[in-house]
């Protein structure tokens, strides 16, 4: 039961963090905790009392399936970890760009900025392309 | 002030008289042995109040008393 409780605790923690923490880096970390919880859950599914790693010992010729832990969840989780790493990497990249652009990683501040500049005042990309206003268009 | 003292003395007499009345009527008593001590409740009322006052003022208050805005200061960084 313990690993499931751990998974549940981590998942709740991650979920709560994503909901409550306004700082985007912390939100991202909470998201990672949540992903780890799912991984723990899958691994817990695979375990078995007295189960072995599904690799034959040297000299062993016969394998009895019942002795082994289920290897499939582990392989699945390898893929899930890759996905998680990719997502985190992309997210960190985005965060660097957000930081450069806004100088803040607090979602509340960012949202007020998004709103404050108004949707119709400037279109997106004002930061990397300030010349996008058409000729003769006075910036409003 | 004098009136209050007279009042107290009157009530004290009433207490004594009622206890005597109860004894005379042969009412049953329950409880610990102390309930059978004559005029126990006078003593208990006096000593009990003294103990409570001592514990509260002498023991708890030095430990627990804070300035009135203590929590405001503690929560100041909200």
């Amino acid at each position, binding site marked *: 039961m313990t690993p499931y409780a751990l998974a549940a605790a981590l998942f709740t923690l991650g*979920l*709560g963090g*994503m*909901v*409550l*923490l*306004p700082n985007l880096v912390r*939100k991202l970390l909470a998201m990672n905790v949540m992903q780890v919880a799912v991984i723990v859950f899958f691994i817990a599914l695979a375990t078995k009392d007295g189960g072995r790693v599904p690799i034959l010992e040297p000299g062993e010729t016969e394998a009895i399936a019942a002795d082994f832990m289920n290897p499939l969840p582990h392989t699945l989780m390898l893929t899930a970890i890759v996905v998680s790493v990719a997502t985190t990497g992309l997210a960190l990249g985005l965060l660097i760009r957000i930081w450069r652009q806004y100088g803040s990683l607090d*979602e509340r501040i960012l*949202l007020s900025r*998004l*709103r404050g500049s*108004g*949707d119709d005042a400037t279109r997106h990309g004002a930061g990397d392309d300030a010349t996008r206003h058409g000729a003769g268009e006075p910036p409003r | 002030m004098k009136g*209050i*003292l007279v009042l*107290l003395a009157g*009530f*004290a007499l*009433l*207490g*004594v*008289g*009622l*206890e005597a*009345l*109860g004894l005379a009527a042969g*009412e049953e008593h*329950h*409880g*610990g042995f*102390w*309930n059978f001590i004559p005029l*126990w*409740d*006078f*003593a*208990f*009322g006096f*000593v*009990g*109040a*003294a103990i*409570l*006052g001592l*514990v*509260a*003022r002498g023991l*708890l*208050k030095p*430990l*627990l*008393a*804070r*300035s*009135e805005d*203590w*929590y405001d200061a*503690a*929560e100041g960084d909200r």
Partner: protein
Amino acid sequence: MNPLDWLAIPPLAHPGLWLALGALVTAIATATGVLGRRAASAPGILFAALAVFAASRAPSGSVDFRVARFDLVWYHADDLSVLFALVFSIVTLLGLLYGAHRLGPGETVAALLYAASAVATVLAGDWITFFVFWEAMAITSVALIWQGGLPESRRAGMRYLLVHAAGGAALFVGIALHASASGGVLDLGRLAATGPPFWFLLVGVGLNAAIPPLHGWLTDAYPEASTTGAVFCSALTTKTAVYALLRVFPGAEILVSLGVAMALYGVVFAVIENDFRRLLGYHIISQVGFMVAGVGIGTELALNGAAAHAYSHILYKALLFMGAGALIEATGRRRLTDLGGVFRSMPVAAILYLVGALSISGAPLFNGFISKSMTLSAAGEAHFYFAELFLSLAAVGTFLSVGLKLPWFAFFGKDRGIAVRPLPVNLLAAMAITAGLCLLYGVRPDLLYRMLPFAASYDPFTAGHLASNVQLLVGAAVLFALGFRRLAPTPTRNLDADWIYRGRPGRIARPLVTGARALGPVAQAVRSGALTAANRAIVRLAAPGALATGAVRRDPFSFRTPIGRTVLLAAMVVGWLLLASRL
């Protein structure tokens, strides 16, 4: 059929229904402007009177209806529940009368709903209904505390809400454990005082009963409520918990020690308290301790004593809080150190307060005496000698601080020449009626005894009982007369259990508070969003040009909600599906 006989038909006999109707009528009448602000409590008083009438003749029996696969018993009347429903209704009526000169619509509605929830809680016949109204009571009482109107009321109310949410969670877990252990039996009946369900239920109910160390919310929040709000608060929440204990855990011995501890704890803290409403709050804890101990003793006499004491307590504690409120209204001060010598300026209120003080102290011929000595006798008869001794000690302490210290330093003592505003008639009338009830039951205890759940007979007016009480009070009075200078209040704040969440440890839980605060803007957004939407829709239809010309400049619909809210909503969808599929 006499029109009033309709009130004897179960759906209409539910006093909570009338209180809730009163809230509805008040809300509609004030919102539509039919009723001015000044008369906001008028319909409430009328409906509370109806509730009192309904409760006084509520027929025994149960009414249930089926929801999902549960039979919910929303009306379960027997002697015990009707007793509480009646006194709740009475105190609601008196409280509304007391505050009639200053109650606004919001506070009236909150008070009526709070009382309605409390009444519905004690009339609930199963755990689910009980739980629903129990939680409703927490929410409505917070609404009432928030009506105190000060920033500190808001913050204390928020803390109160969080603590009660935690208690509600414990209660819910307890109910769930009990239901699964008993195979789905949800009737509100006597339970064994063992195992996890008991502990969870004890924490959940004990929090509302303010059993230390779960009492911090009470002394934290009640002094911050409005003068009227405190009257309702003092009467309802803790007594509902006493009712629950009476119903579910009669004879659980652990309650004896808990109750005795409560009684002494409240008294000791009251001795060093300066804010006089907080002092009275500590005495709620102390007095509830008598009732909890009575429940724990568990004999018929003890249970009768606990129920009777709850009934008496509601009346005299309401009277005391009314007196405290009158002090605040007349002087604008709330600390003993700021007061002194106002007896001459407000003698009527002071004397009425003293009636309450003598009641709570157990002076003969007042209603505290007839119920308190019942509990003490029961303790003696059941051989809980030390419980009896310590409860007597608590009674001494009660007299010391409520009967001697508070009136001495507030009404008598050093005259500080405080300017006193005259008190309105309705306030004094409510106090007088309450004091009259205290005296009435003190002189005619049979009026109360015949409503009690058990048939055990008891005569409080034996010479021994009278002598014992008179002697105790005189002894304490003599001590006070000798040493009152040492008991003088000081302008300090005493740390108590609320330090756990207000002091340093509380910072660990700060994210929880942040989370709860996040709900505020949601409600605000829904409200303002809906209003603005309606407004803009009208503008669009009536004057399409207004938008184009910039008459409506700000665009409220370009808002963005934090992305965490999407995640939260997803979690709620999961929760809903889990719940809905199981029903």
